[in-house]
């Protein structure tokens, strides 16, 4: 019987449930779930960066945004002609950095490559200069301000605060048809599975162990002869790429991207999904993203005022008293049961399980 409960089986089961959802949910709800799954991908990237490497970025909104904009630009060009906001702003010819996005392959590659490259370059300088911890976090906030202000002020190229919206087709198919939306949903689920798998491999590899070592004692790891900054750059860049992918999938299901989705507050909220789900795990970020957004959609409609009190309180309580989030609670319960069952001696082992890596 027990093999039924092995974690692999359950992950696969969850995955299968997600896959059959299009046959269960109405199109509107499916779209909602698909959007949350895109967030879950984003949360996975942040989860690896923060939970395993100990790097807290409050600027992941911009990487998410990059991916979303790249896809939105492709979709806009699909609809033909130059975007209408360029027209109002007196731009009659498509600038080259727009033109390249008319090729879907280029758009998809850039949606992931640009965030990776950008994070790589910034990370290279920042981590090499040993800017870590709180300083790095604050620096990413400055980055958010720079990028969003630029996007808003260059509205002749970016659509400004209105962002980019109003696409109708993708690869020649109507974007809003139920069949296309189902395909997009499945694509999202598959990518979630892939990203999960990659993250799993990553954190359980030697590379992952070094990341954890850096998180727990950067200097110590450096003295052991590891070039810690290279590890940090790579994981930061990886996480940015995942965010770009998530943004791309997000825009396909929501049909709009604006700078307000990349700002300071959304960027903090993304981190809080991970905190609620449980940092230092991979399931945690996924559950945190799904649960927080699900609850937000549900409750904030019903009780908009009480919701803010509630979510504020949840953030405080989770961060202060349950630093390991939902997954932490689960392991604590497990540990207690195990302790009850096997007596005190198992306490140590239970602690070890707490840091198990999935």
């Amino acid at each position: 019987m027990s093999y039924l409960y092995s974690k692999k089986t359950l992950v696969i089961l969850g995955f299968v449930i997600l896959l059959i959802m299009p046959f269960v949910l109405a199109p509107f709800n499916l779209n909602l779930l698909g959007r949350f799954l895109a967030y879950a991908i984003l949360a996975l990237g942040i989860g690896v960066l923060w939970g395993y490497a100990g790097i807290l970025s409050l600027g992941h909104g911009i990487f998410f945004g990059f991916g979303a904009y790249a896809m939105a630009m492709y979709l806009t060009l699909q609809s033909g002609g130059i975007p209408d906001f360029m027209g109002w702003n007196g731009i009659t010819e498509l600038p080259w950095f727009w033109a390249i996005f008319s090729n879907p392959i280029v758009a998809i590659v850039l949606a992931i490559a640009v965030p990776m490259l950008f994070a790589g370059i910034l990370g290279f300088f920042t981590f090499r200069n040993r800017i870590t911890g709180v300083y790095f976090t604050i620096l990413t906030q400055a980055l958010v301000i720079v990028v969003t202000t630029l996007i808003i002020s260059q509205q002749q190229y970016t659509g400004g605060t209105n962002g980019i919206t109003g696409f109708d087709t993708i690869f020649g198919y109507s974007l809003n048809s139920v069949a296309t939306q189902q395909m997009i949903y499945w694509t999202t689920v598959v990518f979630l599975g892939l990203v999960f798998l990659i993250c799993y491999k990553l954190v359980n590899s030697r590379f992952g162990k070094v990341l954890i070592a850096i998180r727990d004692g950067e200097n110590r790891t450096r003295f052991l002869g590891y070039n810690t900054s290279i590890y940090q750059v790579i994981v930061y860049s990886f996480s940015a790429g995942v965010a770009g992918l998530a943004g791309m999938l997000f825009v396909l299901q929501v049909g709009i991207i604006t700078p307000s989705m990349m700002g300071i507050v959304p960027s903090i909220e993304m981190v809080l999904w991970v905190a609620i789900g449980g940092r230092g795990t991979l399931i945690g970020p996924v559950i945190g993203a799904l649960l927080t957004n699900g609850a937000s959609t549900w409750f904030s409609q019903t009780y908009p005022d009480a919701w803010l009190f509630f979510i504020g309180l949840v953030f405080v309580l989770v961060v202060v008293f349950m630093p390991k989030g939902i997954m932490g609670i689960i392991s604590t319960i497990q540990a207690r049961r195990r302790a009850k069952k096997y007596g005190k001696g198992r306490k140590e082992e239970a602690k070890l399980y707490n840091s198990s890596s999935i």
Partner: protein
Amino acid sequence: MKKYKWGIALFSTVFILSACAAGDEAADTGFGEASAGEDELSDSEENSEEVVVDEDSIPVGLLHSLSGTMAISETSVRDAVMLAIDEINEDGGVLGKEIVPIVEDGASDEPVFSERASKLLQQDDVTAIFGTWTSASRQAVKPVVEEHNGLLFYPVQYEGMESSPNIFYNGAAPNQQIVPAVEWLFDNVGDSFFLLGSDYVFPRTANQIIQAQLDDLGGEVVREEYTPMGHTDYNTIISHIRDTDPDVIFNTLNGDSNVAFFNQLADAGITSDDVTVLSVSVAEEEIRGIGAEVLEGHLASWNYYQTTDTPENETFVSNFKEAYGENRVTGDPIEAAYFMVYLWAQAVEEAGSTETDAVREAAAGITFDAPNGPVEIDGDNQHVYKTVRIGEVQSDGQFEEVWNSGEPVKPDPFLENYDWAEAIQ
């Protein structure tokens, strides 16, 4: 041994899914029950899942930000729509049926607007949505109403350059607010303009229009400045104002920034006697946040003021205050939100159905005596004929009208009837 963890993981998944599906179930179970007699007007916690819809009622969607940064402006607009719905229901409803409002929160977040619009159209089957405020949120809803052939009634003045068959634009188009204001200022105040706006679509488009118009009139733009959202330090801008010494500052700043700008302008000792500021986003509601004493003597261009002298307005203002409190004020977007419900109701009566295409067809040429004067839906572009009014801020925070266009102006969102605007179209 980790079955617990995974069991809960599974449970959470199921929970999310059920959250997604909750809307469906509620709609199903609610069907067929008797409709609630009276709706709480100001109940912001209106629960969409509890609204009961049957054959004797017509569901409509109200989609505004009730939370987040835009809640400041949008809750008042929601209140106005609710007032109109309540009045119409008291008079027997539409097609003999009761209008049932389903209130959704856009949360000042564009994806939420688009998602909520989908929900209203797909799940609640509303016949029309009254809502949105910012251009970004309108544009987020636009593809949704177009895809599902729904109707959106939009209550706010905007930058124009848009005409969707599924949207009725009830605020002013640029030629019903900006163009006449520039003309009037040029004739009555002076010919050098300082353009100041927040860095987003409306101010940038408005200023292009003003630039083109002034080129045509022979006026001059001495400087054009944009400040980011939430900007609070206007000293450098004020230095530029001193340096360029304009006759007029044409102000397209949005809500919050106005407070900082006007306060600092007053502190710098620049009053309405030195330079006239004409604003297009400062209504009665905003004056309360800025303070009437620093605004006194400055101008605004709108289609409606709380002081607008029509019998309809007298009733409207007193009803509004009765419903929401003596200290509340009305204003242009609030009034537009109010009369657009009546326009929709008349169109439905005319069409004899709530079916979108029929309503759209019937809407062309519908007229109504709104608080701001007579309004009429222009069948060509689904905007509204409105009277243009320039008002001066008084010490009590109200406007005194100094000029009006005399008759409703035909809306021209693409400025097709103005030769100088060719480059912008």
